[in-house]
């Protein structure tokens, strides 16, 4: 069951990445988020599912759509240039590499991805199985165990996630709130402008 969901997720992820119409890609990304949330539910991570649904499928999609309206929704066929950066010092190289850039960036990225994937796969060798209740993460007496056994007496709420979120790790949550406020502030700074700033942009 979980496996089926995971397969679906991979399918949707591929779709979101491959589809050239960005509007559709965004919509698919929304579906991907929903499916992800289903997976969270399967894994009993209710709060995460809730958030993922509200954010991934809701706000994130709407924001992306709004942005798409302003930037156009077609993806070009040219490649990326992120991987060019180590050589960016040599302008000449850059110009020669302009040819076949899509294919080159595809191969380069694939290589990087393979490297990262290999590293991560290597990392799984000694990992505890998924669902192992005896894994270190699940048995740490001062962390996971503490939250489960003591949160009711120490904090109160039935939802342990809320206790941890709001109290044990309340400071993280404050940081998180600041992050979202920061994002709003940053977007304000970037987008709420009068004519002068806009004209400067268009020069």
């Amino acid at each position: 069951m979980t496996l089926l969901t995971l397969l679906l997720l991979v399918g949707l992820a591929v779709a979101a990445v491959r589809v050239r119409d960005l509007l559709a890609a965004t919509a698919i990304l929304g579906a991907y988020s929903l499916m992800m949330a289903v997976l969270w539910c399967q894994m009993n991570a209710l709060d995460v599912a809730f958030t993922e649904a509200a954010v991934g499928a809701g706000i994130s999609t709407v924001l992306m759509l709004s942005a798409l309206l302003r930037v156009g929704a077609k993806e070009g066929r040219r490649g990326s240039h992120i991987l060019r950066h180590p050589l960016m010092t040599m302008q000449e190289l850059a110009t020669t590499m302009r040819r076949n850039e899509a294919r080159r960036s595809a191969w380069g990225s694939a290589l990087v991805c393979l490297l990262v994937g290999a590293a991560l796969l290597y990392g799984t060798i000694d990992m505890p199985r998924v669902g192992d209740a005896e894994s270190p993460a699940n048995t740490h007496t001062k962390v996971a165990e503490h939250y489960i056994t003591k949160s009711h007496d120490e904090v109160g709420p039935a939802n342990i996630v809320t206790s941890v979120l709001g109290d044990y790790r309340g400071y993280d949550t404050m940081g998180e709130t600041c992050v979202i406020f920061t994002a709003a502030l940053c977007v304000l700074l970037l987008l709420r402008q009068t004519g002068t700033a806009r004209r400067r942009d268009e020069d």
Partner: protein
Amino acid sequence: MRTEKSPVIRYVALRAVPFIQLYALYVLGHGEDGPGGGFQGGVIFASSFVLMALVYGYGTGRKGAPEKITDILAPAGCVLYAGIGLICLLMGGAFLEYGRLAGEGASEAAKHSAHHFGLIGIEAGVMITVTASMITLFFEMARDAHVDHGQDDDDGEDDDA
């Protein structure tokens, strides 16, 4: 953005808005008993305004959540959160030590309810910030997108065909 023409969508969306808002508050209020909390509630609450803007146009949507108010509320939520932390600190405890809200040397039960109120307070803070921020994010993103059909503005989709 001009108003949606189809009465079906208009009608349904309009009736849905209060339900969404109430649901958001429900999510906030029951974050302690089940999934949910300030963040989820905030996002859902904000999405009701998004829906309004989508269906009734940018201006109408913004009227429901005016710039002035969201601009103030967004930091206010954070300030509420951090303020609770500071109050704990001023009461002699550590930052965010809700138990101290009951005062020094309070009984266990009092501390317990202090924790409870602390949690509600910060969840409310989170919700306020998230709602206001999400509304801000959406309306700022959508600002120029919502011009009338007829107008061919420069921000639009370029000749990418």
